[in-house]
């Protein structure tokens, strides 16, 4: 069955008891209202993945939900990519021509789509300037999914002019909020428990995928899933593994992607391979971006999942791993600290040594690992599933359009 045809009832068996009925009653309060989402892509990326699921379910709940996607040329998307990087703190160069083209493409999209609704949720910077063409009725909210904690001043100053015209903004973490004279709401991102990346798998399916990836399952597996990016500290993970290896015969899997179209990613991947050297128990996997089932199988095969980032947006791989009942050791940064309940679902750590210590501690306490895995799954069930995300968006709709 394709994911797109799954309705709200499919979530009854995974969401906390009573959640679906609660959502149905909440949606009653907003029945018939128009809720429009606008973003920059229909496929690929976390926002599109969630909207693919949320929008049809909202329709099923009686909300007039729609999803529009803006169009742009390569120059436009090069500029918005630069915005993305600059807003996340990487210095970028913007020319007047780039900024003018960004506005021009937004104007053209506003003319083509004529976005309107009781609530219009504009996702991320790409369509943010469409606010200039807003109709007088309806509430417009800017939904920022990126880490805005240390933006490049010029990029943020440009974008802020447009954000000021919204009725409200929504951020994924308190640290991402800005000084703005408008209400700012907090909505955590979520995982879809029924998507390929998170759905149940049989032992046979998992074994087959591991065999295809040529990873034996005769030793405990330590796993980190992330892009090959220095902020994910893959070298630190290898160093932590080496400290652990003195006492425990384990295998390390570093699984990531994005190296193919990212020069820096390719460089980091090369550094990681060099650091791994000829150790037969270190596996470095450069997977394609659609390797959802492989990631699922790896997470389910892992004994401990690591996300040793030194900087992180939200880091939903943590929730993915906890959903599969795994204890998680993560860097004490960004959304990782929100997801890991210290000592309950795993540990946050601040150094290679801390990471190694906690891995050893858990490997020596299998009962604790099981307990943390169970607690993690329940924590995700209550806080990081798409059903909670739906509840938050419905709350926003009810609150702003009452």
């Amino acid at each position, binding site marked *: 069955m394709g994911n797109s045809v799954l309705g709200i009832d499919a979530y009854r068996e995974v969401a906390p008891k009573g959640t679906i009925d*609660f959502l149905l*009653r909440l949606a*009653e309060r907003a029945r018939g209202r128009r809720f429009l989402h606008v973003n920059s892509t229909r496929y690929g990326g976390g926002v599109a993945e969630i909207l693919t699921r949320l929008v049809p379910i909202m329709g099923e709940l009686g909300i007039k939900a729609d999803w529009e996607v803006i169009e742009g040329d390569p120059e436009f998307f090069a500029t918005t990519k630069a915005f993305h990087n600059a807003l996340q703190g990487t210095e970028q160069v913007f020319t007047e021509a780039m900024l003018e083209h960004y506005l021009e493409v937004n104007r053209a999209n506003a003319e083509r789509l004529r976005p309107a609704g009781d609530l219009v949720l504009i996702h991320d910077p790409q369509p943010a300037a469409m606010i200039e063409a807003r109709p007088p009725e309806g509430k417009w909210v800017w939904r920022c999914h990126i880490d805005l904690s240390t933006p490049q001043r010029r990029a943020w100053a440009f974008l802020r002019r447009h954000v000021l015209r919204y009725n409200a903004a929504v951020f994924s973490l*308190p*640290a991402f909020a800005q000084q703005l004279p408008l209400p*700012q709401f907090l909505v955590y991102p979520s995982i879809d428990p029924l998507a390929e990346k998170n759905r149940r798998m049989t032992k046979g399916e998992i074994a087959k995928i591991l065999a295809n990836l040529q990873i034996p399952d005769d030793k405990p597996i330590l796993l980190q899933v992330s892009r090959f990016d220095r902020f994910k500290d893959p070298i630190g993970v290898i160093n932590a593994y080496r400290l652990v290896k003195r006492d425990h015969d384990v295998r390390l899997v570093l699984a990531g992607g994005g190296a193919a179209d990212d020069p820096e990613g390719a460089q980091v991947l090369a550094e990681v391979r060099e650091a791994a050297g000829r150790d037969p128990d270190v596996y470095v996997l450069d997977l394609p971006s659609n390797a959802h089932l492989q990631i699922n199988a790896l997470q389910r095969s892992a004994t401990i999942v690591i996300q040793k980032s030194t900087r992180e947006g939200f880091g939903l791989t943590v929730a993915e791993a906890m959903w599969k009942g795994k204890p998680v050791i993560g860097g004490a940064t960004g959304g990782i600290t929100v997801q890991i309940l210290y000592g309950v679902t795993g540990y946050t750590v601040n150094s290679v040594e801390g990471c190694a210590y906690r891995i050893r501690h858990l490997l020596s306490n299998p009962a604790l690992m099981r307990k943390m895995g169970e607690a993690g799954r329940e924590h995700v069930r209550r806080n990081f599933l798409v059903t909670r995300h739906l509840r938050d968006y419905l709350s926003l709709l009810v*609150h702003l359009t009452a």
Partner: protein
Amino acid sequence: MAQPAPFVFFGCIELRELLGLRARDERELLEQLERAPLGSVYYHTHSVFLRHHQVTGAYPNDFANWVAFQVRDQVLGERLAVVDPFAFGSLEALREELVSVIDDHIATLHPVPRVVFGDPFFFVQSHVIEVPTGMEAQSLGEFRQCLAEVDASSIYFHALESRIRRGHPHGDFAEWIDRALGLSPLAEEIARINPYLGGLEEIRLRMLRLLDAVLGREAAAGGE
């Protein structure tokens, strides 16, 4: 005789609003706490019950958790944790107590403890949205049945939210039992349950015990 008005159970959810106020040390925490809207004082001292369903070893308010686990000042964490919001007649009085505890603690400390590796404290307030549960009770027996099944957010809404933000000092449960059923002694016992000593499930458990005792006595009297 006219039927009493039914008790209609509502659940709730909260939409969290970031206030843009943050603190990196205990003096900033004090200063921002003095400036923050009362809704934020409420959020950081009450909504924690709605958010934490698990036993995490955490303290029952966000201020105590932050100084204990982010600033790593266990002493102030403990002193803030023991402040019982139930003991204050208003959120303003509760705020004054929290400010006083922090002020007293940092008066002798040089430098003032600050967060080094942890996160700043972010002030938040919430907008509680009520959601009908579809459950209502006409009698004490029906009320008991609904209470046993209803979502924990319903207990939060009727026992905490109603007391602090909707002007029902004894909570909705006690008021209905008193006014609609005329069971004042039971209502008084329910009103005395301190929500801060055990969380929402503890409130449910204690209420069920009290209700069972009354229903048991009624059944015994009916059988005589």
